[in-house]
């Protein structure tokens, strides 16, 4: 039953979302009024990109293939998918002729490291504190935290990261201004390098962490306040169950379920936010790669990052959703 009612529809949806997203990526340059190939080349020229002789011809033929300007739209569409299945995202223009996929793979560990730690930590800590703050809603510490969240929550990633950068890197000079490690250091598993990486990641991680923890805190607090009003909590209290047990075992546990769905739904937003944060701190992940691609007019690289991200994010959301049954017995025994 579980398989048929939950797993299979979810998998079908997963495939369809990827199909839809990548189809959109395919059609966007074709539906817009100007010729994508000429447009891209003009863009690169306007930005004074240096190209070796002969590189231009390769780029034009590459672009024509990528935008698949030979044959009918349907042929083009099939060819596009054919390339994707071979893992071929074309070559980057501004770092010609490095394949886009190689650039993405170099940047990926930075983004994954930053994103994984901040997302998990902010979800866990935000929900835990939010849970207690919701249960003890009239204590003064709960109100203080709520007030802080009310101020932090609405700020967009860019502004918040930039404000932290101004304060801690320029004004107080506690942390480095930009980069992923000290300049000139080669990636290795040595202690000085790891130390440098951690040191450089404090501010970017902190800004993503605070923003998303504030969001989890707020929703969790409200959910818990609603759960609090349910009769099973009153019953537990009347039967003399310890307060700490009620909060952790009954209230927070019940309130966590919508938060898991919420995590799945907000992964896309958190990911975009992380890209933007990376740009602020010139952190060498996908965000900064994207920034360089935009500044250099490298449409192929932008398209590659987008396609890659669509697949990565929908897959992560799928994984989160598939974990749901472990937490909700109602689905497990369905």
């Amino acid at each position, binding site marked *: 039953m579980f398989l048929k009612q939950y797993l299979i529809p979810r998998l079908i949806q997963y495939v369809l979302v990827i199909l839809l997203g990548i189809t*959109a*990526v395919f059609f966007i340059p074709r539906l817009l009024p100007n010729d994508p190939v000429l447009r891209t080349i003009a863009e690169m020229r306007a930005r004074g990109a240096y190209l070796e002789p002969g590189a231009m011809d390769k780029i034009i033929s590459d672009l024509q293939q990528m935008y698949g300007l030979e044959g009918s739209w349907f042929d083009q569409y099939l060819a596009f998918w054919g390339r994707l299945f071979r893992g071929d995202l074309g070559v980057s223009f501004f770092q010609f002729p490095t394949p886009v996929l190689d650039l993405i793979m170099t940047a990926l560990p930075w983004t994954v490291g930053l994103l994984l730690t901040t997302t998990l930590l902010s979800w866990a800590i935000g929900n835990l504190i939010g849970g207690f703050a919701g249960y003890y809603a009239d204590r003064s510490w709960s109100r203080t935290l709520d007030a802080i969240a009310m101020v932090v929550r609405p700020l967009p990633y860019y502004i918040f990261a930039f404000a932290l950068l101004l304060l801690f890197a320029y004004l107080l000079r506690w942390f480095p201004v930009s980069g992923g490690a000290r300049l000139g250091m080669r990636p290795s598993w040595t202690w000085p390098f790891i130390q440098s990486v951690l040191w450089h990641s404090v501010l970017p991680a902190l800004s993503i962490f605070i923003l998303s923890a504030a969001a989890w805190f707020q929703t969790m607090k*409200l959910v818990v306040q609603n759960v609090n009003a349910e009769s099973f909590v009153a019953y537990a209290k009347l039967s003399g169950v310890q307060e700490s047990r009620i909060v952790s075992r009954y209230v927070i546990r019940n309130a966590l379920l919508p938060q898991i769905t919420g995590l799945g739904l907000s992964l896309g937003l958190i990911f975009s936010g992380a890209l933007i944060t990376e740009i602020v701190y010139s952190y060498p992940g996908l965000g900064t790669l994207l920034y360089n691609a935009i500044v250099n007019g490298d449409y192929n690289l932008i398209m590659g990052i987008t396609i890659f991200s669509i697949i990565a994010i929908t897959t992560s959301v799928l994984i989160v959703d598939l974990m749901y049954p472990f937490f909700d017995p109602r689905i497990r025994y369905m």
Partner: protein
Amino acid sequence: MRLFRDLLRDVRFAVAFWVLCLLLTFAALSLFSPYDPTRWGQVPRDLRPSAEHWLGTDSNGQDVFWNATFAVRNSLIIAVIAGVVSRIIAVIVGMVAGYRGGSWDRALMFLSDSLLVIPLFLIIVMMAMLIRASLNLATLGLLLAFFGWAWDARLIRSQILSLRERDFTQTAILSGTGTLKLVLNEYMPYAMPLIFSTLINNMAWAIGLEITLAILGLLDMSIPTLGTMLYWAINYQAILLGRWWWVLTPITLSVMLFIALYWLSVSISEYLDPRTRVQRVGA
């Protein structure tokens, strides 16, 4: 009027309301600006704040104070276009999905779920990159509107779903009310508060994205917005050179704007329906 008085009792609403009034006045001042916002070199460069130039001048030779009035106005225009147009899409999608149900519902909700899962920021960057030449206040607003309706359509749909189960729906249908009339006359008033609070949230989202796109250099940099002001300040190394008045003006204005919009939407939705707070503050 009573409603307004009640709302003002909420500190957050009062603060947000006055801050927004202040910002709107500020934006309206742009009508009296002695300078043309699109022209550079009208005043001496890089002056500190003084009696003559209240917030100093920037490296483009523009007066920061007067430029900021245009910036707030233009950012608000983008936000209003994005917010209103995406509200229209969200209302239509939400109402059709909620009222028609069945395969319409499944198809539309699949579409909005997809928009929620796909990293839209990247798709918007791709599009902005290609149409940059024709990206002005209106087209940027429309671009953001096109992608900004998904979450709110879901919220409206769930409200319509619950309204459809109410008795008055049956009464209306049995007494011969047409579908369109039923939806517009009977459901709209119930959905209005929700639409309004999502409008405010959506406007904040649009301004945030406008700032981000501007920083990436994807907008027309000659139009002053909160984003393009910040772009120029960063581009001219205003931080390293200690020109704090230039950097802090757009930052302070946008922080005020974001907090005011958020507090307004939270206090209004809590006032209207404390039980569904969760949905609206939701992720």
